[in-house]
């Protein structure tokens, strides 16, 4: 049974530019599928990031989330939204 948990959300690269902030907090269910988390982030919580959804990777507590993983969040878990940087 999923319970709500407060997490930290960190934005990198283009996500930071679009959100105009580096980090924020959100309260979301502590267990869900990767796809559910993705929908929540890109289509509900941060609509501005919808345009970069396909190019972003998500990481929870410094670990990459793969397509079919189940996401488990603890209080203050860190969800990172990471698009690739291309400049050099």
């Amino acid at each position, binding site marked *: 049974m999923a319970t709500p948990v407060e997490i930290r959300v960190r934005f990198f690269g283009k996500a930071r530019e679009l959100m105009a902030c580096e980090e924020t907090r959100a309260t979301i269910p502590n267990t869900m599928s990767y796809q559910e988390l993705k929908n929540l982030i890109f289509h509900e919580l941060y609509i501005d990031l919808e345009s970069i959804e396909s190019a972003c990777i998500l990481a929870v507590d410094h670990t990459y989330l793969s397509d079919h993983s189940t996401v488990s969040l603890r209080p203050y878990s860190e969800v990172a939204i990471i698009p*690739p940087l*291309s*400049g*050099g």
Partner: protein
Amino acid sequence: MSDDCVPGPSTCNNGDDEKVGELKEERNSETVLIKEESNEDKMKRMNALLNRKRKKAVETPSESSIVPSIDKEEDEGTKRRRDEARQKILWETERAKERAERMGPQGWVRPKSLNTNKEFLSRTIQSTLSRMQKRDRDDKSIIRSVIMVVLTKTMHAPHSLSKEQVGRYSRQLLVADFGVTGQERLSSSSVLIVGAGGLGCPCATYLAAAGVGTIGIVDFDTVSLDNLHRQVGHKEKNVGKKKTESLRDSLHELNSSIHINCHSVVLDRHSALEIFKGYDVIVDCSDNPSTRYLINDASILLNKPLVSGSALRWEGQLTVYNYGERCPCYRCVFPVPPSPHLVTNCAEGGVLGPIVGTMGSLQALEVIKIISQSGATYAGRLLLFDGQSGKMTTVNLRERSPKCAVCGPHPTVTELIDYDVFCGSGVHDKTPDLKVLSPSERVGVAEYAMLRKSRGVCSSIAQEIEGRKDENEGKSVDSSIDLSLSQSRIRLFDTRPPCEFAIASLPEATNVPLDRLKNMSIDELVKTLKLPMKKDEDKDVFFICHRGNDSQLAVRLLGERLTNEGETIHSDIDTNQLRIRDVVGGYQAWADIVDDSFPVY
């Protein structure tokens, strides 16, 4: 790369025991070898002598064992020379011992071309014997010479580094887990750096300094003045010169003993494999998604490790791809390229020099670790460097994706493809030109210049102040002069971020950043943009930005908002009467065509 390298040094710390063990083993092997090589009596005799002398030399490296004995018939001069030679040899032996002790076990690892101590010593003996036999028939003399050579080579760490190299690289030879072996591997390796820009300059500089044997540089571009704040491998005098040649000259000034290849071409599907195949490690220092996918695919097809770095504004990213069986490639992690209009490049978003400096240096470090076989810290891990907050975050990436189009078990990319098509954008780090508006919704810079002149707007604040001075007939002018007069003559809104507006702007322009514009209510829009309410007011509204992309979006946005919401709220705004246009090409075009004194960036 790993196949032809010497196995890594033992981590064993009891260097002395190990050395003694090795020497004993060598002595036996050399005996065996000579026996095998020659069955003649002469060689047997020599062998026995050699064994006896060699044993003494190793166990007790005393004078008598390592220095030829003095023949009675020799005169005083010869004796003196002998004594001097003996002293010198003893001194060198002591120095060699000290050096070997300081270097530890790694100092004794065989050069790359020789697999074992046995082989090394055998070859030394063989070559010495063959030389000696030709010019000296005296057995004693041959044996003496062999002993001398063997001892000298054994006492001095038998590696392939020259005295000059030992001196030059001494401070990194002293680093544990790198040492002589690491240096030998570095000196015999080849590294390709794609991009001689912000990342490529520091990366190539450190690799050249460290003594990577061959460095290849790929770049089609020339050095420009706005490169120099971060691309520190280039000099002012080289503005306009090819970046490859500029960086090569800079690297050769630093280290003239290495080879540098310039590949001054646009890296594409036709050239990449041919260039890549000559190198051990590939370093991605490029600046656009199209090249990044090309570099990845070429590295996978040729099975080369790829050290990838990138940077923008205050941030940097670093990952090592394709280093080991399970290590992912760029496509495993980022299978879908970002939309071209959502890619911010350095020309647009800016970047700080030390950010690319940090990332390029870290790339060089990963290359050194890969070549010296110390492992790659960021293989399958993504380093996120935030220079503004000083945070470094490492994310553990996935393993190789079974669905990967290039490195998966069923690849769909088996040869290089058209990456400009795949990414929807080219390799040039240039901002794409949007074409959102119809020609009637746009005004060229020349036309705008005439328009504003006809309405009495001066071309610069200086002229404006000068004009006011004349009006006031020499009265003192308030420095905070109000430009509202000129602003009221023509409505020009500048959609750039405040930091860009601060660089330079037209005096009549009001800064309304696009991001702010997007979030305004219709009331705020009408108020901020001072939209004309009265029938006799001028109906022109202009938008300008850096290069003419955001200004088009602003025109489109405002038109839509006014059509959808404006008229219902403000019945006195007649959108059909309003003429909202953008200035084609923005300030860049203004500087190019109208006013060449306008600062470009």
